[in-house]
């Protein structure tokens, strides 16, 4: 179980997280929704210790990871799989080596098993025979799927998906959605998805949480969120430009303000 308590983080003078409270139960898929730049990536980077908060606690299986040293953190990180927003594939390695990377360093196994695991995992994300390619030879959507294969190859307990469907065509997006559901059903993985794709959010989540102005303003099941009375959440899920959410407009007076 993961519990986030009163998490604060700013970059320089700019506050990003201002007291986030959130609980992720074992086996569930929780989706964090929120506008671009509201701090969704920053929030999940804290969960694996990639960023350190100014204040607050992050309890992972009963341990506050904000207080761990780098060495101790490495052990915790082995329990997490992380799909990065842009894939973050190692471009000096082949696709196969990328997918094998986590297994090599976290759960070593004999070479023949490793190779089989790599091709199985790639097949799960709808790719096969791409092992010898370099990431530069792949399309954006393929890169994302390889990134996903790399994150799940070593069967982590928790998987963090940073915008798994952004930039994919609708069919491929649905393949990824099915995959997230499948992993949850078969491997009982706990997942935290970050997205602003509402279709995907409704489909994969047990619960949704809306991040707005540095705080979680509502948590609930997909039905509860769909029938919310909170005007901010309403505006976001219906995708309307009219409402309480301030939309920074391009114009001569924009720029440093906001």
């Amino acid at each position: 179980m993961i519990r986030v308590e009163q998490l604060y983080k700013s970059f320089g003078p700019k506050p990003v997280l201002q007291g986030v409270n959130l609980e992720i139960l074992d086996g569930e898929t929780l989706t964090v929704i929120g506008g671009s730049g509201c701090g969704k990536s920053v929030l999940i980077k804290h969960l694996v210790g990639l960023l350190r908060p100014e204040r607050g606690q992050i309890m992972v299986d009963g341990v506050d990871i904000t207080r761990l040293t780098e060495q101790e953190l490495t052990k915790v990180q082995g329990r997490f799989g992380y799909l990065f927003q842009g894939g973050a594939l190692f471009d000096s390695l082949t696709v196969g080596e990328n997918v094998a990377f986590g297994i090599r360093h976290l759960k070593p196994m004999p070479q023949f098993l490793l190779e089989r695991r790599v091709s199985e995992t790639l097949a799960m994300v709808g790719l096969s025979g791409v092992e010898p390619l370099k990431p530069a030879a792949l399309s954006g959507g393929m890169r994302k799927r390889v990134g996903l294969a790399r994150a799940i190859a070593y069967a982590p307990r928790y998987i963090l998906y940073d915008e798994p469907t952004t930039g994919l065509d609708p069919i491929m997006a649905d393949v990824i959605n099915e995959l997230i559901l499948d992993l949850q059903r078969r491997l009982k993985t706990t997942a935290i998805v970050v997205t602003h794709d509402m279709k995907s959010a409704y489909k994969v989540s047990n619960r949704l949480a809306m991040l707005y102005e540095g705080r979680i303003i509502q948590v609930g099941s997909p039905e509860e969120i769909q029938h919310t009375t909170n005007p901010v959440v309403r505006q976001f899920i219906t995708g309307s430009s009219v409402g309480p959410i301030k939309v920074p407009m391009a114009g001569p007076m924009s720029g440093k303000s906001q």
Partner: protein
Amino acid sequence: MKEGVRSVVEPPLRWLGERFLTLAEALGQVTKLFRQTITWLYKVEARNVMAQMVEIGVRSFPVTSLTSLFTGMVLALQTGFSFRKVFNEPLYIGSVVGLSLVKELGPVLTAVVVAGRVGASIAAELGTMKVTEQLDALYTLGTHPVRYLAVPRFIACVTMVPLLTVYADSIGVLGGFFVAFVRHGVPSSVFWDEIRLIKLHECYHGLIKSIAFAVIIVVTACYKGFTCGEGAEGVGRATTSAVVVSMVLILVSDYFLSAALVALGIGR
């Protein structure tokens, strides 16, 4: 009145203070990077080290050959003319060319060339990895960027730069001999006798410095890459600054290292 004084005095003081804090912080981070690199030295994958040795060492041979060859040649040319003016004949070309190369120009020029070629590429590569979240990905996949990226580059640099230096010294001396023999008519036995007079500790003087320069190059480049700013602009800035900073550090530290080594009796 008081307010006026304050408004004049405060900005430069604030600027200085901020500069000082930034520098102190950078020094702290560099020290940490260096310490981590040393602690992980033995836990490195041989495959990665080999790849870096090829990249850093082998690929630097052509440019090192050219620079040192022409440096040796121009040294012989100029020494010959200068000493002709003083002694009426081209004396001591072998000694001047040999000693300058072995103690100073070999190590410094090789380091400067490597800083430009290798320092830039390390900073750009690591910076790009930082910007595209590959460094974060390394963390989440159970490795530390310093261990996986900095350590192999460190080992490769610290072994290959002295090797390149020895090679540069030899090529430079050959170039010097060629010009001394052909242009100034120095007999080959005279030239090589003078080269043979170079003491072993004088060679150590150059080699020790080249190891220090290698450390400067690789630590600066890794630090600049790891702390790279956002986007393509950040990578560009990290690359430039890695090259400039390491070149300045090489030339400045060269003086102090030489003085210290001579004080220790190495290469007096």
